[in-house]
């Protein structure tokens, strides 16, 4: 097999060579423990971590000390939600979140419910995947201590109205956490203007290394406190013990610096590529449907359902292209995407969905190749699809009597 085109940038991204160059000296040369306070190795490492904190904080208008380093966004989500619930248990136990959140948020909430530590409201979304801020307001009770709404959805790219939700949280004096894993570095974020108190993100979605993420924790106006999940040396203002992953942190810092410098031009470039991809496919194939919001979505995200073609079989045909599917067959559960289901996409169409994730290293040539391959494979599989044949014969697939297993 020749070169495989990577177009799955919501799953992870290639480390930018500039990020890797920044990290390398911290493996072999400046390998000190940033907590070693009495020698040069420690001071060098600490200096690098401090610089990274500044680079990161500058990206979304935070203070450097408000950045708590973690192993990634899943840990950050867990720490934010469990940490607040535990610390503020005297104040309340109710969480408001949405059905389309990442599993790192949903399963954390479910674990807290099972343990009897929290009551959780899972808000519905509209057909585009948007949470209605009025629904957030209506769900709040005098026991609500946390609102957790993601910035941009990892499957459909829909961008949530964080500013409106942040304002509601401020009005009511409730903490607002956002899982901004897909948003940070790609969309403008200002934790002050958007009223965000806690925010999870990770390096590997923004061309940094895997295994290093962070949680933004507001230090004043109001100060947010957390019960740590791990006991130990009291690193990171006591919120996350454990020797810091210095090379990873340097990488996250550099990734944030690059993202800030290139955000506008890169978003415009990705949008152009996405239009080329979308128009190239939809101009040649009928019965292709867009999942998610037509405009209020990540520039690099295109999620399409190819009616009558099962997603996994399409991925199998696109073996020289790395994309992902909302089809059940690509997951262990045999259930199609819960996100698409929440949008009201029928299970029949959910099984046919493909997520294209454009990123920094994709080119117009990549897009043209993907268009050509997708169109070819969809046509081939439709010729093999009994559903396509039936639809063309005018049979209504919704009312047809299927012999269900």
């Amino acid at each position: 097999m020749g070169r495989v085109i990577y177009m799955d940038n919501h799953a992870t991204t290639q480390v930018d060579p500039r990020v890797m160059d920044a990290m390398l000296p911290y493996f072999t040369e400046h390998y000190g423990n940033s907590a070693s306070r009495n020698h040069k190795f420690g001071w060098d490492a600490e200096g690098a971590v401090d610089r990274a904190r500044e680079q990161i904080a500058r990206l979304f208008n935070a203070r450097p000390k408000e950045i708590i380093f973690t192993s990634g966004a899943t840990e950050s989500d867990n720490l934010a939600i469990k940490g607040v619930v535990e610390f503020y248990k005297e104040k309340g136990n109710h969480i408001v979140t949405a059905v389309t959140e990442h599993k790192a948020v949903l399963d954390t909430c479910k674990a807290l419910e099972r343990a009897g530590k929290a009551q959780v409201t899972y808000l519905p979304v509209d057909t585009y995947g948007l949470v209605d801020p009025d629904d957030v307001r209506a769900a709040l009770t005098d026991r609500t201590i946390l609102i957790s709404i993601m910035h941009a959805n990892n499957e459909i790219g829909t961008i949530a109205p964080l500013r409106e939700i942040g304002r509601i949280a401020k009005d009511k004096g409730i903490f607002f956490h956002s899982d901004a894993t897909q948003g940070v570095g790609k969309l403008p974020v200002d934790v002050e203007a958007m009223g965000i108190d806690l925010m999870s993100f990770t390096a590997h979605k923004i061309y940094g290394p895997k295994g290093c993420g962070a949680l933004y924790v507001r230090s004043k106006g109001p100060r947010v406190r957390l019960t740590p999940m791990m006991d130990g040396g009291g690193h990171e203002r006591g919120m996350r013990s454990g020797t810091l992953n210095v090379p990873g942190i340097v990488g996250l810092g550099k990734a944030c610096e690059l993202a800030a410098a290139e955000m506008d031009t890169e978003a415009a470039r990705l949008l152009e590529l996405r239009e080329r991809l979308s128009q190239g496919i939809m101009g040649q194939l009928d019965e292709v449907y867009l999942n998610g919001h037509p405009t209020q979505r990540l520039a690099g995200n295109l999620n399409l359902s190819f009616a009558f073609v099962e997603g996994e079989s399409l991925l199998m045909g696109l073996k020289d292209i790395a994309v992902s599917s909302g089809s059940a067959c690509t997951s262990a559960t045999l259930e199609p995407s819960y996100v698409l289901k929440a949008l009201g996409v029928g299970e029949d169409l959910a099984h046919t969905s493909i997520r294209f994730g454009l990123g920094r290293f994709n080119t117009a040539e990549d897009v043209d190749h993907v268009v050509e391959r997708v169109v070819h494979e969809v046509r081939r599989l439709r010729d093999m699809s009994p559903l396509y044949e039936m639809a063309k014969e005018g049979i209504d697939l919704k009312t047809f009597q299927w012999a269900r297993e």
Partner: protein
Amino acid sequence: MAYSDKVVDHYENPRNVGSFAKDEPNVGTGIVGAPECGDVMKLQLKINETGVIEDARFKTFGCGSAIASSSYVTELVKGKTVDDALQIKNTHIVEELSLPPVKIHCSVLAEDAIKAAISDWKTRHGEAEAAQSAAANE
């Protein structure tokens, strides 16, 4: 998930894709599965007067393993009598294609498709014979 070579081969070079005219009396059509389950197989068998399957066609909406299972079945049933075809078990398909546990339902669906197609043929064949003998008696 890695696919077995045989699954890949059937997926890339599916055997006997297509359709026969459904209303021919010597054709049995089985459609099993449902779109919301992610798998639909249509299997058609052309069966001669002695009850031997002379030809088969399939169309499948489903994952690569579902396509491969139905493609393999069209090869497997050709030349078999209806009674022998009804003896085909899904486990045979699992073994031939080295399907992993999560894909066993594809083989079950393929077995169901054979049974559904033969059942359809029996119904229609019976009707055709009845019509013939009715015509002969007039």
